[in-house]
């Protein structure tokens, strides 16, 4: 990795969808080993930011780097370092979940015997063993969430980006995911999390960024952002126009 201190660096990022400005001069950094919560109301620009960092979206101006690798010019290097757990399940319908993970590992240059072993480990870790040879349609929504996590982790990425990973999960699964994420972060992985659950962000994260109408409206270490208040009240203050939040 070229720059070991900064996992994600975004400078002056602006992104339009036709005439709609989805991201407006967004700049921030995520430190290596951080657990970063990226919060905002629906349509604020969270998923767009993730898509830009992972290369799923083009953008008009700005610069995005992952561990010092420019995500446009040096995309193979930057993508190798990222694992993305998307909001919705989007699996190849022709493959079993084991095949799906093995192929995904293959795209990241992992040898087949290593990929098979790693896929089995993740399938066991996320309690999907009984569905190992099933196609994703046979999975419940909670199992699909777990499979999304397995897919994001199959190549042992340095940065794990999670787009609302616990949305729609039952309590048991939510705790399983929380524990695993906390453990990964302890092991040194950088985690970038978007969520609508304030208690999730408050419990897990070290740094908090809040985006609204495509602009960063609050960012800093958890203590600094909260200042002895609840995250929910801070969030409502900066995002709700009735409370004087940032809006166009």
């Amino acid at each position, binding site marked *: 990795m070229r720059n070991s201190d900064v996992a994600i660096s975004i400078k002056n990022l602006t992104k339009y*969808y036709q005439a709609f400005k989805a991201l407006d001069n967004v700049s921030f950094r995520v430190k290596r080993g951080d657990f970063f919560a990226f919060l905002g109301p629906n349509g604020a620009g969270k998923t*767009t930011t993730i*898509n830009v960092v*992972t*290369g*799923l*979206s*083009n953008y008009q101006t700005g610069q995005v780097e992952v561990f010092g690798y420019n995500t446009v010019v040096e*995309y*193979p*290097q930057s*993508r*190798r370092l*990222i694992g*993305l757990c*998307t909001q*919705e399940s*989007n*699996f*190849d*319908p*022709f*493959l079993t979940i084991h095949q799906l993970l093995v*192929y*995904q590992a*293959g*795209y*990241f*240059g*992992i*040898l087949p015997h290593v990929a098979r072993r790693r896929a089995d480990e993740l399938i066991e870790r996320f309690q999907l063993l009984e569905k190992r040879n099933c196609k994703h349609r046979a999975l419940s929504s909670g199992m699909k969430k777990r499979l999304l996590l397995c*897919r994001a982790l199959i190549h042992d990425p340095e940065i794990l980006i999670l787009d609302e990973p616990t949305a729609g999960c039952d309590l048991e699964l939510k705790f399983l995911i929380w524990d695993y994420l906390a453990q990964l972060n302890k092991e040194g992985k950088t985690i970038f999390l978007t969520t609508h659950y304030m208690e999730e962000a408050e419990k897990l994260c070290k740094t908090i960024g809040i985006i609204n109408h495509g602009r960063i409206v609050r960012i800093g270490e958890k203590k600094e952002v909260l200042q002895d208040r609840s995250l929910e009240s801070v969030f409502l203050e900066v995002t709700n126009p009735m409370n004087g939040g940032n809006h166009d």
Partner: protein
Amino acid sequence: MINNPIGTLSLSKREILRFFSVAGQTVFPPLVSSTLFMYIFGVAIGSRLDLSSTGMTYLSFIVPGLMTMHLISSSYENTSSSLFIARWHNHIQEVLLSPLSYFEMVLGLLAGGVVRAMVVSMGVFLVSLLFAHTVIQNPLLLLYFILTISVIFSCAGMMGALWAEDFGMLNVWNVYLIIPAVFLGGAFHPISILSRPLKIFSAFNPMFYLINGVRFSVTGVSDIPVQFCAAVSLLMAVFFFYSTVYLFKIGYKLRT
């Protein structure tokens, strides 16, 4: 050019196994239709046609035409359906999020089209042996044409898949452009029987060169010099390949 060989091979393997797993829909139908074509047009009707000017029977004449036609349609259909379904289900993201370069992505995706086209075209040739004993005159040249033609139409299939907004649009190019051009390009008739204006028209049809390239490789007979056919097919393959890589690079209908 290839920095991630394991990744490229993984994607190629997935694409190849995908069509083999549904061989009943991807490999056998062209063989059945070719058998019928050869029997009805080659044997029943063809025996009454005089093709003495070409030095061949009509059956021998249409075998390379049928091989080319299925070579083209198999490679086009394979990549167009595979990439379109991946866009439709959004599992194309599995590939787009990976460290594969755009060159490697296109290479991996077209592998299925190329292998399917090879299997089907050689299958058509084997079926032709049921009706006539044919010896391939230039096997290496045939391999060259099979590779270049399948690359051209695998890439065209990917372009079609990127362009299409729904399943109805997916086959528009194939039905309204490619198949008519194949028929008019001399798959089933020698150029010598056409009127002068149609001969001139054929000279602007790229399929004419591709079909004649395959025909020369199989029978040793062609309407035009084979070097010209080889150059046209190579230029087209390079053009279509790099155009597809460019579309992936700019993220045409792949990135928002």
